[in-house]
Structures are given as structure tokens and as C-alpha cells.
């Protein structure tokens, strides 16, 4: 429809002129956004003067008709002109016969080259309240209009046209004219206003994307056409890049290596690289040709199956198609209808392989019946392949709802029942971003200097309201005990952190600045030597708490580490031994070491680092001799023997 021509015939003597202006403004701005190439003419009738200079040929029998705008692409001046109509002609007009104006309109089409194109249509829209006289021959004009190709679509728009049965006088005559014109239609002003209020995307001609046969095995073939039923609509026009005054711009792409010189690369000297683990595998054009598949255009049945085997959530496609018989093939249509009806009766679907064109990737599709009272056809949707389905495992959700929880949920479901709101049907909600784009473009075109308007709330889907739903929600909140989890770390803004009146924070800083930090302050009250940095903790504890309690603490930690086979035992042993030697705490150390020594790990560490019992050579008061100490790390048996010997020796000495 992008090459259409529209002639607006406006009866300026009409009482509904203001309403007509509103309809025209809305209609034209939809039209110009959808089809910028449309040509629009305005013919005024009922004016005091006459100006038909735009017509070629004999035109002297026309009176009170002005061709204000010839057939031209629409722009802002057209809208300004329409806006000014009531002011200019509201009082300055006469009631005349409208039929000659239609003749003028028809002749405007005539003088254009009559080239039939599927993208073009001719349109006459007559805005009137029809209270004038009709003296001309209606059938003559109708005949005149009907000969023009492509056929004229004639719309009569005026008040009181709702009830076509009870029309009187001139209105009835005009109505008859509509009936005589092959594509005539009447519309009341109110209806026209409602229709043009919401922006609608342009209509798309129904063209088959596939013509072929649905093949079942080698035996049965149904001739079919496939037409698109559902397709994601993009915006009517994409926003093209341009300079600040609308000048053309182009995108420049440069390819270079990541080296120092940024060596430029010719786009022809590039291969695509696909990730394979850590590396990229280059795929040359020859390799790429190996990857493409050879396939032949077809729609072939693979199997039939129960409808319940197709899971709704698994469908990933964005398109749905209608599979219909070719027009004018009624026999084939009946065959397809029989197949569709049988599928419906059995509640089954047909799984098919679909190749749209030769050498394109085959798709998996599912055909299911679409049976209406007057025809039975099939619908087609894409099915996922096994690659499309991720097999993820999730932990079980454990919950045993209480009876009051169940009843609260039931109340919620009953309350928010959308079947009581017929006006809210998901499939009837328009895409708000499409409406918004139109709103902004139309606004900017008609008011170039004004800022963009706010989003029109009416264009966004309005969710239905349910009475008393708040109470039910509150009840649910209560029975399920839903609470916001308080974040453990209190978030503070930078302002709070650095503000000088923040008392808490100031004291915190003070605390850190205190010079005499005690061990408790650093590690918290009741702190113990930790297992992560035991050596450092131990050294700190020695200076702050005294050696004896620190060593006791440390030996406890080592016991724990030995139990859990920590990896820093060696360092711990080394440091505690040093301190114990220095402070003559040999009893504590030797006693503990004997305990720890039962562990294989400690044994190994002691052997490697020759860490043994503290002996006389190190602490003079220690009863353990150097030999005993050495024997200790060498082995249990020797030590035991020695210990026994020891006792004897001592006795002997005494």
C-alpha cells in the first residue's frame, strides 16, 4: 500500500467539520508514518469560491469546489492546512451538491498514470453530514469511479451513520452510492475516531512462503501453501543513522592486528575462527562450504504422535504458520480438511521435516489442526532439536504447605481470575514500544521544536484491577511469613562514611588509632590462637599475655592441628620449642610432644626437622639427656627401652 493515492473530499459546510479534522489528522499521521510515499490531495466542497486549476481538460462546470492540495507526498504544511480548516471555512461556506466533488476526485486519479501495482490503492474519503441537495446522477459518478484502476476504495464518513437501516433523504442516497461503488463503505465519525485513536501497524499482504506438498511416505500428497500467522513485528521504520541535519553517514570499519604497529588487515584476508576449548580454529571459506548442507525443498511427515508429547515450554520458535490448500483447489482442500479433522478428533499432531528452500537447514516442525466452522486447515510451529534442550538437574524443593496456606493461595487464585475480565486478553495487547515510537515520530514531525511527549499511559497495557486483592495478598504474606532478609553488612553511602557527624564511625576510627592495642582488642575478647596464622598469633600472645599462658594456648592449637592434619604443624613446633627452651618450659613441651608424637605426621616432621625433646644441653634443669632426646625421634622401641633403663639407672645412682 506504500504507493497509494488518497483524495480527501471535505464538505466545509458540514456541522461535523471539527470532528472531521480530528479524524483526518489522526488518520493521515498513521498513514504517513506507515507509508511515507503515499500521495494525498485535499478537495474542499461548499466553498464560496472555485479553484480547479489543478485539473487538466474541461473543468468549467464545477462550482464551489477548491482543490487545495494536489496529489503530493504529505508534509507538515498539509497538517497545518487541515488544522486551520474550521477557522477558515467554518462560517464562510454554502450548501451545495457533493457529487461533482467526487467527480473532481476521480478525475484527479485519471490524470495520473494508471499503473496497477500491488502496492498501490486509490482511496476517496468523503467527510460530510450531508444536509445539502443532490441533483446529479449518482449512477453516473459511481460508474466513473468504478472504471479507475486500481479500484477506488470509497469511504463515507459523517455523523448519524451508525444505523444503516434507518437512513433518510440525502444520507440514504449517499449510502446507495457507497453500495454502487465496488469498494464502498460508510463509517460514523465516532467510529472513525475510535479506530484512528490507536496506532496500528501496517497490513501485510498474505503471501505464501512455501508452495509445495505435504508428503506422507511415498503415497499421499497434499498440495499446500504456507503463510505466516505469527511473526515478531519490528518497528515500522528503523531509525537510520544520520548527521545533525539529516545528512547521510556511513559506517567505516577498519581491521587490524593487536600488535604494536596495528597492522591493517584486508577484509578478504580474514577467516572466521570458532572456539574449540582453549584455542580458536580458523575456518576457511572452503571449509565453510563443507559445513553447509545439501537439502531439497520439502515438507515431509516424519511421524504422528499424541499432542501431549509436545511440551509447550520447549517450543523456542518465534513464528507460527498456517498451512492452507492453494486457492481454487477445492478437492485438495477437502483432502487437507479430512486430515486436519482426523487429527483433531484423535487429539494428535504430525511431526514434519520442513525445508523452506533448496540447500537450507532442515527444520523440525509440528502440524496441528485448526478446525473452524467453514474450513479445516493446519497450523505449523517449529519444534526444538535435542541440542536446544538443556538437561539441568535441580535440587528437590521441599515444602509441606499448611491447610491455611493452601486456602490463602486458593483465595488468591479465585480473586485474580482473569476470565472475569474479558477485555484483558493477552493476545490483544499491543506492543507498547511500537506505539511509543509512533507517538514520538508523529509528535516530532508536527512540532519540530518541542521536546518529546511523555509516554501515553493509554498505549501501555493497563493491567486489570481486582477488588479486595490487597487483603488476600496481606493474608498470604502473613500465613507464609514472608520477610525481607536483612542484609548482614549495613550498606553505607560514601557521604555517611566521611561525614563528620557520624558518631559511630568516629569512635571506630578512634579505637583503631589507640596506641595501646591489647591482644584482646586485636583478636576480640576471649581470643585464641587461630589455626590459620598460629605462629604470628603465638608470638603476639607471648609478648602481650606472658609466655606461660601463650605456650599452653599454643600447645592446645597444635593438638588440634595434629588431629586435623593441618599443614603448618612444623612451623608451630619450631616456634613453641624455641620459646620453651628460652623460658625453660621443658616440662610443658616434652609432655605435649610425647602426645603429639603418636601421630605419623608429627613423627615425620620431627625426623625431618630434628625436633626432639628438650634436653639437658639446652636447659640445664631438664632431666632429659641428649642421648634420650635423640633416641626419642629415632623410634618408639628404643625410647621405651631407654626409659626403662633410665629408671634403673636413677635407682642405681640413688
Amino acid at each position: 500500500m506504500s504507493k497509494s493515492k488518497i483524495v480527501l473530499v471535505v464538505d466545509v459546510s458540514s456541522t461535523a467539520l471539527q470532528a472531521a479534522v480530528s479524524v483526518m489528522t489522526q488518520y493521515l499521521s498513521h498513514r504517513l508514518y506507515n507509508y511515507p510515499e503515499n500521495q494525498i490531495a485535499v478537495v474542499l466542497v461548499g466553498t464560496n469560491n472555485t479553484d480547479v486549476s489543478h485539473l487538466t481538460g474541461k473543468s468549467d462546470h464545477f462550482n464551489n469546489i477548491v482543490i487545495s492540495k494536489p496529489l503530493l507526498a504529505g508534509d507538515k504544511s498539509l497538517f497545518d492546512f487541515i488544522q486551520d480548516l474550521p477557522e477558515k471555512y467554518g462560517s464562510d461556506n454554502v450548501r451545495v451538491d457533493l457529487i461533482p466533488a467526487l467527480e473532481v476526485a476521480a478525475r484527479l486519479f485519471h490524470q495520473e498514470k494508471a499503473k496497477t501495482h500491488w502496492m498501490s490503492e486509490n482511496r476517496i474519503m468523503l467527510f460530510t453530514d450531508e444536509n445539502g441537495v443532490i441533483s446529479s446522477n449518482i449512477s453516473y459518478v459511481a460508474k466513473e469511479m468504478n472504471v479507475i484502476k486500481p479500484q477506488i476504495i470509497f469511504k463515507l464518513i459523517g455523523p448519524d451513520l451508525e444505523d444503516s437501516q434507518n437512513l433518510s433523504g440525502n444520507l440514504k442516497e449517499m449510502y446507495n452510492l457507497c453500495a454502487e461503488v465496488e469498494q464502498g463503505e460508510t463509517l460514523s465519525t465516532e467510529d472513525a475516531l475510535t479506530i484512528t485513536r490507536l496506532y496500528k501497524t501496517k497490513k501485510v499482504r498474505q503471501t505464501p512462503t512455501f508452495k509445495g506438498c505435504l508428503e506422507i511416505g511415498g503415497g499421499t500428497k497434499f498440495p499446500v501453501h504456507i503463510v505466516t500467522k505469527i511473526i515478531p513485528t519490528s518497528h515500522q521504520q528503523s531509525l537510520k543513522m544520520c548527521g545533525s541535519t539529516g545528512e547521510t553517514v556511513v559506517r567505516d570499519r577498519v581491521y587490524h592486528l593487536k600488535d604494536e604497529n596495528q597492522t591493517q588487515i584486508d577484509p578478504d584476508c580474514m577467516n572466521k575462527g570458532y572456539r574449540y576449548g582453549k584455542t580458536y580454529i580458523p575456518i576457511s571459506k572452503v571449509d565453510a562450504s563443507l559445513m553447509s548442507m545439501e537439502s531439497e525443498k520439502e515438507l515431509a511427515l516424519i511421524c504422528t504422535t499424541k499432542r501431549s508429547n509436545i511440551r509447550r515450554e520447549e517450543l523456542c520458535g518465534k513464528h507460527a504458520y498456517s498451512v492452507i490448500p492453494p486457492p481454487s483447489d477445492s478437492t485438495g482442500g477437502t483432502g487437507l480438511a479430512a486430515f486436519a479433522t482426523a487429527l483433531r478428533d484423535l487429539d494428535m499432531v504430525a511431526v514434519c521435516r520442513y525445508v523452506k528452500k533448496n540447500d537450507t537447514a532442515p527444520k523440525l516442525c509440528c502440524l496441528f489442526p485448526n478446525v473452524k466452522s467453514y474450513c479445516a486447515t493446519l497450523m505449523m510451529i517449529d519444534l526444538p532439536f535435542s541440542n536446544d534442550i538443556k538437561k539441568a538437574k535441580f535440587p528437590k524443593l521441599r515444602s509441606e504447605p499448611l491447610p491455611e496456606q493452601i486456602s490463602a493461595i486458593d483465595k488468591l487464585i479465585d480473586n485474580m481470575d482473569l476470565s472475569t475480565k474479558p477485555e484483558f486478553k493477552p493476545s490483544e495487547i499491543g506492543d507498547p514500544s511500537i506505539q511509543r515510537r509512533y507517538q514520538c515520530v508523529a509528535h516530532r514531525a508536527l512540532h519540530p521544536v518541542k521536546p518529546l511527549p511523555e509516554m501515553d499511559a493509554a498505549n501501555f497495557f493497563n493491567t486489570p484491577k481486582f477488588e479486595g486483592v490487597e487483603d488476600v495478598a496481606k493474608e498470604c504474606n502473613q500465613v507464609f511469613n514472608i520477610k525481607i532478609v536483612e542484609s548482614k553488612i549495613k550498606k553505607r553511602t560514601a557521604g555517611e562514611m566521611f561525614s563528620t557527624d557520624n558518631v559511630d564511625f568516629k569512635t571506630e576510627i578512634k579505637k583503631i588509632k589507640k596506641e595501646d592495642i591489647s591482644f584482646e582488642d586485636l583478636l576480640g575478647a576471649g581470643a585464641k590462637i587461630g589455626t590459620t596464622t598460629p605462629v604470628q598469633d603465638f608470638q603476639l600472645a607471648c609478648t602481650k599475655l606472658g609466655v606461660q599462658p601463650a605456650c599452653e594456648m599454643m600447645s592446645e592449637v597444635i593438638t588440634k592441628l595434629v588431629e586435623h592434619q593441618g599443614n603448618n604443624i612444623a612451623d608451630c613446633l619450631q616456634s613453641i620449642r624455641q620459646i620453651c627452651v628460652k623460658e625453660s618450659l621443658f616440662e610443658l613441651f616434652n609432655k605435649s610432644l610425647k602426645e603429639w608424637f603418636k601421630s605419623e605426621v608429627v613423627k615425620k616432621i620431627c625426623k625431618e626437622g630434628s625436633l626432639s625433646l628438650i634436653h639437658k644441653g639446652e636447659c640445664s634443669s631438664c632431666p632429659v639427656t641428649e642421648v634420650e632426646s635423640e633416641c626419642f625421634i629415632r623410634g618408639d622401641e628404643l625410647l621405651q627401652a631407654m626409659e626403662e633403663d633410665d629408671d634403673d639407672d636413677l635407682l642405681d645412682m640413688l
Partner: protein
Amino acid sequence: MDSEFEDPFENEVEEEGSFSYISTLNGTLCVVDCSEEMLVKDSETGVSRAVLALEAIKATYCNKLISGSLDHLGVILCGTDTKTNDYDGLHVLLPLDTPDKTCVEVLQKTSNEFASGKFQFGRGQVYSPYHLLWTCNSTFTSCVKKLGSRLVMIFTNVSEPHNLDPKTRQLATTKARDMSELGITISIIPLPTLDGSMFEIEKFYSALVPDHEVTNPTKDIEDLSMRVHRRESKVRMTANINFVVNPELTIGVQCCNLFGEPAAKHVNLCSKTNQPVVTVSSVVRETDRAVLLPHEVYRSCKFGSETVIFSKDDVEQMKVRSDKGIYLIGFRPAGDIKFHHVAGKSTFIRPSEAVYNGSTDFFVTLLTRLQAREKVGIVHCVPREGTPGFIGALIPQLEERDEDNEQIRPMGFHIIRLPFADDIRKLNYEPSIEPNAAQVDAAKSLILKLKAKQFSANLLENPEVMQFNKTLEAIALEKETIEETDDSTKPDVESMNKRAGKEMSLFNDVAFPAGYSIPDECRKPDYKRVIALVQNRSREGTLAKVSVADLKLYCQGVRLKVPSNAKKGDLVEAVTKFLG
């Protein structure tokens, strides 16, 4: 083209739907027990359990390689003769890293050795499960990359490791608990025992993984690979989002995409050096080649003969914005959701207690009640801040398990995208002559003959993706031949004819009267005739006499590429050149 250089405005429609995820790497360590029981060949199949495990791990590696993901994998053998970190009986076969092709080779080699009875690393040694867990833990902690999830998978058929003393048992249990607190998941994959007795998880492993679900062991390699794959891809891609039932009632949910495979991404490489190529793009004024800065680039659109211009800020203002979240609108009977109202991939949601306590209870109760009452929710779903969002249906799904107690479907809601009114086209249907009962009955018997009882969408693989993967793999591994892809979508015409030949001819007899012929436009082009014709004419040297339509058909038939608007002269030239 690299996505980062794409025009952000042009992409806006595409972006609106997808959820943004916290994308992180997954880390998985596979542990294969090399105890005597694992290495003995099965009396039926002749394949040992360890080989089975290695094959399943290899399949996981191959999957990872092909998918091009950067996830980390590693393999540890236990019960070997070698030492790792001074611990006896452990051998790190493959360190935790992004896999490359050598990994597959190592796995293949090891698997072959195991199969032929050679054990390079020794076998059947005693090892401590505590040391094993300790090694796993330290492998994870020493990994430089930040891992989003960490999983240890233990393949074994020994219910209780040998020579297990109470102390080691205690230590292992404690270690396992510590690891689970650190977010490391341990999963046991039981393999069939030798004597056919049950794998008793209670003996030892249930202490490591208290809430482990017991599944029946399997001997089937595909089944095993599938289980490994399921576990491995278990904890993935979650985004937290609020589910707003009403301003008074909000719960927290997590969402993830379970369906739809993203297309393979590529980078540009220099064909000489195979170095990656950087693309720099700029916007240039056509008249004087001046480079425009981003704020100097405006957008334009036609409105009649006017050109409407928008600045970058205007374009931002033109976007429809909603706050991120899932907003419940109401409930409808499940039957109201039309099968063909498709608008893209669905999203799976599960409750999350991270922000709202009590979310799980509410979620599960709502789900079970909707399921019981055969209703669905209608929601306005805004996956990203500042996008308009879409209308979706909440479809409840209960948990389903197979006979081996393996989870097939998890519990949760699917949010199905519904099309907007603008996306649905109004079509004109021509009234058709109603079929008679005999015709419908014949169709019924034909349909029933061709019925597949167990059809499900995951039976057939995408031949295009398979072909791509196989070629990529062949090039990567420098294979000489590329494995043939058999197109799984090709119908088995022969057996269909055999099964339902009678029904087909019966249906043809009742539905299509004698003398009926398929309209020309729906017939398959007769390539044979055209090829013969063109060859004859070419021999005679009168190629110019063949009609344009036939020439085009010939090019199609012999897969000769010509521009669609080619003139007769061009066609003749192309065909002559083609025929030599």
C-alpha cells in the same frame, strides 16, 4: 560482526527479551576410583567400569570443546600407585583447566590402556578418601580464575573404600562438610557392582553427602554421559529477580534458560598468521569523510516527505521503560493459552530465599495449587531494567523422575512468552468443502498407522549443528575425513510405505477422485527434464533457445549459483561455463 561494535539502537528489539545473567565459569573435578572392582572387565559387555567412567568424562570434555565454553574440568584417579601432594594412591590425570584437544587424547589413551589391561599408574592401592577430598579442595582453591560453581563427581562402584579406619572416616566427613560450606558440591555417580548387589550409599558416601539422591547404577555409556552432563550443567546461570504478586506481596525467584541453543560465536582471524583481528568502526559523514563522535550521530525516520531527526538523548527517551521484575496480572484456565501463540524461548523460574524469607513455601504452594486446578498465571515480565518487557504465561511443572530415580524434570514455573497483538496476522481462509465421514475415517486410520508412541523433542539432533560440530572437530583434530552426518530429520519413507501403504492408497481413493492432479505450483520441479533439455541444446549449440524459466530451474537443479535477477544472456553464459 563483533557484537560490541554493533549499533546499540539497532539491537534494541533483540535485547529486550533476554535475561541478563551473572556469567561465571563452572569448575568440575571428575574422580575415577581405580580399585580392583572398577578395573575388572564386565562379564557381559567386556568393558570395565573405569573405562565406562573415562568414556563418559571424555564425552563431557568433547561437549565442552565443541561448545567453546571456558569452563574448567579436571580428572583425578584414585587407588593408583602414584603420589600427589605426598598422598599415596592419588594421580592427577588432567589438572583443572579449560580443556583443549590434548585432554581428549590423554583420556582416550588412558581408556585404551585400561581396556587392554595395562595400568601405567598402578591399580587397586589403598587411598584415603580424606586425602582425596583434601586434594580436590586445594585444587579448587589454587585455581586462578574465579569459579561460579565447583563440583566434585566421584565415579565408583565400591560402597566403602578399602581399609577405612574410623579416624579417616571421621576426617573425610568433616572435610566434606567444610567443602560444602565453601560451596563445593560433591556428587556420587554409582556404577554397577560386580556381583550385581546394590550400591550401598549408606555405608560411607551418604556421610559425605547427606542429602544425596540415590540413583540406580547404569552400564550404558550414553545414559551415563547424560547423567554426567546433567550434573555438570546443574548449577548454572541464575539471575535473581522479584516476583511481585501484588504491591503487598513480593517473593524472590531465580531464573534460567533451559531451552534454545545459542549460535556459535566467532572471531576474525588473519588468514596468514591466524592472529585475532580487531575491528574498529566509526561513523563517517559521506560528503567530507569527517568522523562523527557518538553524540554527533543522530537518528532519522521518514514521515511523509518530512525527515524527522532525533538526538541520542531523544532516542533514550523514546524507549519504553519498566522496572525489572515479574508482575503477576492474574490467572486463567490452562486451556486458554493457545498452542500456536509462540514468541520465543521460555524461561524457567525457581524460588530464592536470598532476599525474601518464605519464598519457597509460597512458590511451591502456588505451583501445586495451579497444577491441581489446571490454571496458569499471566505475568508482565521485565527481565531487564528499563525495557518494556513482555506478557507471559506461568506454566506450573511438578518434579518428574524416571524409573532409575534420575530427575527428568525439576519443579518450577516456565514463563512462556506470548506474542503481542501486533505480531499476530489476520489471515483470510477460503471456505472449504467439508470432508465426509469416509474421508475423515480413512485419514484417521492413516494417522494411527504412523503414530510414534514415545515421541519427544529431544529425540532428534539438529543436522546443521551436527555437521558444523563434526567439521570443526575434524579440522581441530586434523582428521583426514569428516564423519558423515546422517540427517535425523529425513523420514523413513520405505518403512512408512510398508507400514501404511494400504491406508495411504485407501485415503487417496476416497479423498482424491480419479483425474485429480496436484496444481503445478505445488509440484516438485522436474529437474531431470530440464537437465536433459539443457544438455541436449548445449550439445547442439542452441542454448539460447531454452526459456529463462528452464535455465533458472536448471541452475537450481545442478546447484549453480546465479543472481536472481540474471538476464538470459548471463544465464546462458553461466551455463555454458558450467558445462565447460
